[in-house]
Structure formats: structure tokens, C-alpha cells
């Protein structure tokens, strides 16, 4: 499912809303999550999961083509931990 399909499904089940509002709703949710992570905050949605940042320490990497050592600075990566309910739903075949 892509974002536009998600918007379509929600628009169909909410005929009282304009499609462009549904679009804004979906975009607002993901923008808020992104903004929170950008600020270093975590986003916790009980039953669904939690977004947080994981730090990666600086390391010396290698240019795979030339084999030269390059220093890779410390960075953060977004991380998602699946919530309990969602995890259970994935496994009810």
C-alpha cells in the first residue's frame, strides 16, 4: 500500500470529508512524526509502535572502490519498534 492508496481508502470510508482534507490529515500525521524525530523526541503510539532515534557512533569506513580509509561522523537513524498489539496481529494467520 502506498500513501496515495492509503488516502484513497480513507477517503472512501469517510465520504463526508474532501479528498484534499484526507490528504492533509495523512500528511500532517507523518510530518508531525518527522518533526518530532528531527527535534530528537520520540513518538509513541500505544499498540502500534514507537519511533525513536538510534545513535550510530563515528567510525572509520572505507571507500569500497579505492580502499581508502574515510572517517564517517556520528549520526542518528530513525528506528521503529513494533507495538505489542501490532506484533500480535501480524502473527494471527
Amino acid at each position: 500500500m502506498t500513501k496515495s492508496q492509503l488516502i484513497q481508502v480513507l477517503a472512501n470510508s469517510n465520504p463526508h470529508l474532501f479528498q484534499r482534507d484526507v490528504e492533509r490529515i495523512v500528511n500532517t500525521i507523518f510530518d508531525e512524526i518527522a518533526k518530532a524525530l528531527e527535534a530528537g523526541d520520540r513518538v509513541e503510539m500505544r499498540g502500534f509502535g514507537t519511533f525513536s532515534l538510534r545513535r550510530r557512533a563515528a567510525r572509520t569506513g572505507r571507500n569500497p572502490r579505492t580502499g581508502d580509509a574515510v572517517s564517517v561522523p556520528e549520526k542518528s537513524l530513525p528506528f521503529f519498534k513494533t507495538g505489542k498489539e501490532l506484533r500480535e496481529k501480524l502473527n494471527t494467520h
Partner: protein
Amino acid sequence: MAGKTITRADLSEAIYREVGLSRNESAALVEMVLGEITNALSKGQPVKISSFGSFSVREKAQRVGRNLKTGEAVPILPRRVLVFRASHVLKGQVNDAGSKAQTES
């Protein structure tokens, strides 16, 4: 390091503010969005949100685990796990912030 936690309530507040729906309806829509994503994933379908990231379901095979207390071997049954991969856009966004936080501390 900022240590705030954003919850569903903050997301629905943002919808209330940005889109102008009632607070109740905003909350209901947050639920619906998460519900549809859950739905697709539980059918094994990946969910791709452009410029944010993608959620995909990975099948794990059965393997032998161990009860750490008793040391006996216990089979870990085959199961499905969820993997989130952040898009390049999101990774970039987060790292501008990360380097800032680093210099501040």
C-alpha cells in the same frame, strides 16, 4: 538531548489545528490511519509512505532458542516481524538535527 514523547493526542491535536476538524474526529482519524496501516501489514502487504519510509513484513524461520535460566533448548516458532526503513529524506532530516544536538551538548 530533547527527551519529549509525542503521543496520539499530539497527532490529533495537529490535525485539529491544521485541518480544522473537531478534536473527536481528529482523534478518530489518527486511529483510522493507524488501523489501515495495521490492516495492510497484517495481510503481509508492505506500506510505503513516500519521503517518510516504508514498513515491510519479514518472515522469520523457526530456530532453536534457549531458556536462559534453565539452559534448555526451546524452539522459536516461525513468525512475522515488521521492519521499518526510513526514507533518505527522513534520514537527512534527522541528521541535521543530530549534528546540531551534538554541538549543543
